[in-house]
């Protein structure tokens, strides 16, 4: 298919662009296969707006006489308005945008066409290989091994080719366990806590069904990860009743009699359309420009967004606490083990492991616990807060995770190497990007699409020194401790940087950021100068003494 077929009117003049907090600008609108480009004609202010079609969540059009107006609502929550003279042009442009922003073939997406303008220092596609990660683990313990049982994705289509499993369990056993677990997602290692050797594993629900089926190999695997006299907790991300209901559909939960050293805790975390509804309501509340305080608070409350943040963060804390404070290992699962499970395992790691609070470590966490672990990004992030489609599989699971990380960053402003901008950038790229990183739903799909060969990795771009500096938190001081966030409502805040980003002037907050950077860099510069002078003085003094000795 040629994009040209979809573009009925490639260009319109005298278009007026309206954005909040900025004066309206007149200019030219161009449509290309992947971008909507608006450039103002004014020479003094040659400003261009580039918008990826894939970033467009919904589009509305209306007419006053022959002047058409298109309102474009983006997945990054921005809303812009374009006034286009001429009814036909406007209709053409609107329908072109509609068609281009809803292409159903992944291979037509921009990442397959994007050619980077920068030199690749390190290829992000191979920056976080499981083998490398395993080397670190192997240096600490020899109880685990890598298995290539899933190398052709036949055992579990949503798992990567390589996963870490207990050394004592052979591939044959794994194969049997996979049959007993939803989607073949047998228990794998997610995190090893250096301090006490406790581990966190993740899986999907066991397929016990109504008649309480059991699987000896599953029991063997799970029990084998605990030494004698040790305890473990199975954190089920569903309520007990939801877990019980799942039995009717062939799912269920492990009965503790068969897992004697394990205790089960149900920690209900919402999923799917409930989360999507919550996001839609929250964004609606944030975009409400009325000046009524009561309506704002009740809408914020009714959206339940912060309730979800609190639930998820609490569950993450619980898992971390079991490991660090109770000296117990943890197994996390929900139904499929691709959503709430990953929120919890990744949050627990950020709490426990200072490495995950560095930029590199956080990238590695996203790769391990989200991309390789098979979070279906393409389905979940197909639409954002302005969508009308209401598909069951759309859900801001990843955004909620990022929000929880932001809450921690807010409570521990000096313990993260990255800043808020980094989290916002990840949110944007998960929904629309020139990079292939978040395309596809799992490693299987990614390898079929040949993403590493055909597209650029987000990490290749982020990890360039000149980009990296924009994501650095100037206040960062390595903190090797476990960080325990407060989950009280008083401590949790609306993430303004995402939800009010386009509705508030950011000038004063940016200024504060800039001032912070300046204070820190002044200090560093001076530190260097002083060190240099100290060395120089010391050098001259020793020379002096030597001369004197002579």
């Amino acid at each position: 298919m040629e994009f040209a077929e979809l573009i009925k009117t490639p260009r319109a003049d005298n278009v007026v662009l309206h954005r909040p907090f900025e004066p309206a600008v007149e200019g030219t609108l161009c449509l290309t296969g992947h971008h909507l480009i608006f450039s103002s004609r004014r020479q003094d202010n040659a400003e261009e707006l580039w918008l990826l079609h894939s970033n467009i969540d919904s589009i509305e059009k209306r007419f006053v006489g022959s002047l058409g107006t298109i309102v474009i609502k983006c997945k990054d929550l921005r809303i812009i308005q374009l006034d286009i003279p001429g009814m036909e042009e406007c209709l053409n442009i609107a329908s072109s945008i509609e068609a281009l922003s809803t292409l159903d073939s992944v291979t037509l997406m921009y990442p397959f066409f994007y050619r980077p303008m920068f030199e690749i220092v390190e290829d992000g596609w191979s920056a976080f290989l499981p083998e490398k990660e395993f080397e670190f683990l192997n240096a600490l313990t020899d109880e685990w091994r890598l298995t290539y049982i899933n190398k052709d994705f036949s055992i579990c289509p949503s798992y990567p080719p390589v996963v870490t499993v207990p050394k004592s369990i052979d591939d044959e056993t794994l194969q049997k366990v996979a049959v007993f677990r939803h989607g073949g997602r047998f228990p794998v290692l997610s995190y090893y806590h250096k301090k006490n050797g406790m581990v966190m594993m993740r899986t999907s629900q066991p397929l016990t069904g109504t008649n309480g089926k059991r699987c000896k190999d599953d029991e063997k695997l799970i029990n084998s990860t605990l030494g004698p006299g040790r305890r473990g907790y199975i954190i089920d991300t569903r309520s007990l009743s939801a877990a019980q209901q799942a039995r009717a559909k062939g799912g269920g939960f492990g009965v503790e009699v068969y897992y004697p050293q394990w205790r089960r805790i149900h920690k209900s975390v919402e999923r799917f359309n409930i989360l999507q509804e919550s996001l839609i309501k929250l964004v609606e509340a944030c975009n409400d420009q009325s000046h009524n305080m009561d309506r704002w608070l009740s809408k914020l409350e009714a959206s339940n967004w912060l309730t979800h943040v609190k639930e998820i963060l609490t569950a993450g804390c619980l898992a971390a606490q079991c490991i660090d404070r109770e000296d117990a290992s943890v197994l996390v699962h929900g139904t499929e083990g691709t959503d709430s499970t990953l929120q919890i395992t990744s949050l627990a790691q950020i709490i426990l492991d200072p490495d995950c609070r560095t930029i590199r470590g956080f990238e590695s966490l996203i790769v391990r616990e989200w991309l390789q672990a098979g979070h279906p990004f393409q389905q979940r992030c197909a639409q954002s807060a302005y969508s009308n489609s209401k598909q069951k599989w759309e859900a801001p699971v990843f955004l909620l995770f990022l929000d929880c990380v932001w809450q921690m960053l807010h409570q521990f402003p000096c313990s993260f190497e990255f800043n808020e901008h980094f989290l916002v950038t990840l949110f944007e790229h998960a929904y629309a990007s020139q990079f292939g990183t978040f395309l596809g739903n799992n490693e299987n799909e990614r390898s079929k699409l040949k993403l590493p060969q055909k597209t650029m990795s987000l990490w290749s771009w982020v990890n360039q020194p000149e980009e990296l500096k924009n994501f650095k938190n100037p206040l960062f001081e390595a903190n090797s401790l476990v960080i325990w966030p407060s989950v009280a409502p008083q401590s949790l805040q609306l993430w303004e940087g995402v939800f009010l980003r386009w509705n508030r002037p950011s000038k004063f907050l940016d200024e504060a950021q800039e001032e912070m950077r300046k204070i820190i860099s002044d200090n560093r510069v001076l530190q260097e100068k002083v060190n240099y002078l100290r060395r120089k003085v010391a050098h001259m003094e020793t020379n002096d003494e030597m001369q004197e000795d002579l």
Partner: protein
Amino acid sequence: MVYRWLFFGRKNVRTLRIITFLCQNVGTVRIVLPQVENVRLLDRLSSRKAAVGTLYLTATHVIFVENGSETRKETWVLHSQISSIEKQATTATGCPLLIRCKNFQVIQLVIPQERDCHDVYISLIRLARPVKYEELYCFSFNPKLDKEEREKGWKLVNLSEEYNRMGIPNSYWQISDVNREYGVCDSYPTEVYVPKSATAHIIVGSSKFRSRRRFPALSYYCKDNNASICRSSQPLSGFSARCLEDEQMLQAIRKANPGSDFIYVVDTRPKLNAMANRAAGKGYENEDNYSNIKFQFIGIENIHVMRNSLQKMLEVCEMKSPSMSDFLWGLENSGWLKHIKAIMDAGIFIAKAVAEEGVSVLVHCSDGWDRTAQVCSVASLLLDPHYRTMKGFMVLIEKDWVSFGHKFNHRYGNLDGDPKEISPVIDQFIECVWQLMEQFPCAFEFNERFLIHIQHHIYSCQFGNFLCNSQKERRELKIQERTYSLWAHLWKNRADYLNPLYRPDHRQIWGTLHPQMAPCNFLYKFWSGMYNRFEKGLHPRQSVTDYLMAVKEETQQLEEELAVLGERLANLQKLQLNGNKVKSKQQDRSKELALSASSNSLANTPQEYSNDLKSFPSRSPSQGDEEDSALILTQDNLKSSDPDLSANSDQESGVEDLSCRSPSAGGCLPSEDSGKDSDEAVCLAV
């Protein structure tokens, strides 16, 4: 009566005991039971954690000293901070006593014997409700300053200097002595600034037409465009009354701003309230009677509504483990943020009129000492960057609150009085400032701590600034001769109150602030730093302000070292050139070098720097592994033994506890808060 000064350090419990024996008879108050052993201090957030210790009642404080542990953690509460004491039903463990403080601290004690509890309760009820000013702490508080220093402290904030700064007196405004000896209005200061064309006759005439004779007087003058903010009380207009002098007074205010042909008259009450006042012979200005005024209502609720609103919000803050919905719903239901927004909106309206339209504004409510004070000071703060400095902010409070007769004693219940007079009027103003600081992080010279400590001392009665209801009463009591000024105290410790991000040079900040109006834009936030001030576990665990201040301090040290090193380098180079030196001189130099080298290493090694950082929350023991402060999950649930396996697994109890706030970390308050210093003297009557 003999006064004896005793000094004791924080940990000197023995001295404490002596003192408590000494103070069984304090003035007119008899403390029935000065000391109770084996009292338990409950942690508000988790009933499982309780400290056992001894409770002392002294003339000025309630003190709880923890048993055991070498730290001997102490909790000090000034009697004047106590807002309510509640004796609850006796349980098997003892008799619970709940003390709520005006600085939002809540203390839950369990006293073993019911009789002891009753005695403590009775004593505290009396101690927390002094009947004479002389019983207040400021009359016994002595920060060991001599008379001269005390006088200097009181001169730190000078209102006539402030009016001079505004450019007054000038050809439009003058100082009037019409209120000398408080002859016209006893709640106004003696020095008032009025339009030049307003004669004494007009002022007196106008004052007779205004509630409590609070005639229009100048609060703020903008010298760039001559627009001003004046304040008064409501006119006694009833349904039809007029007063020629009052009309002339408003005319005079308009004429003092030749650039504008009208003035705004802003009534900060809801219209309904103002109309109801007409029936009582009061009310609001009729636009037909006053030439060239534009009349405007801005509905800020009265003190009773505000008192109830705070009460409701504090109930939300006190909830044990609220869900997000409980919290947000409770916050909305309290209406608190709505009221804050109303005050801010009024301030924004006035600031806009003055700065953008160049129109003068007369502000009033009923008596013109609550809402009017709030709104005038918010507007001034928005208009003039001077009020966003530390000194300027002190001046602002002195100008719009203290001098214009805000009834501190009645509103904050310093002396026992009518509970219906109590209302968090200045608390709301302080919160408005905080909300502005959140939106304009570089615009204020001071930080959040400054606001919190001012709020604390408005209630503490440790300093004389906020005593009484008017300047007249303060002068009669000779406050300045008998007590100390808070402003001098804050100024002395100003390093603690600096905002590291303050940029006085910045053009956007050096002018009028334009806050956003819509709640979602402005994002009026719940201020946990104030209302959950003592639940440290709820606050961010690392303070950006403290971190940046430490960095700035280090930068300063580096600068000093740089200068020293530069000098030494120059010397060395000179010496090398000279080659030969006198032996003795050489020795001197090496001595000096050794000295400065050691001091340098102290100030500059990275180890030293990170040691400094140890005071940060993230590095403090509370973050350490042994401390249980970070524990969120209950021990019982996880440690339950195997028999109740099933019970454990299908209940979400392990989960419920997680939703509770993590327990508060530190308990020890900064000395500033509790009105004690390690070297502080306590005055006792023997």
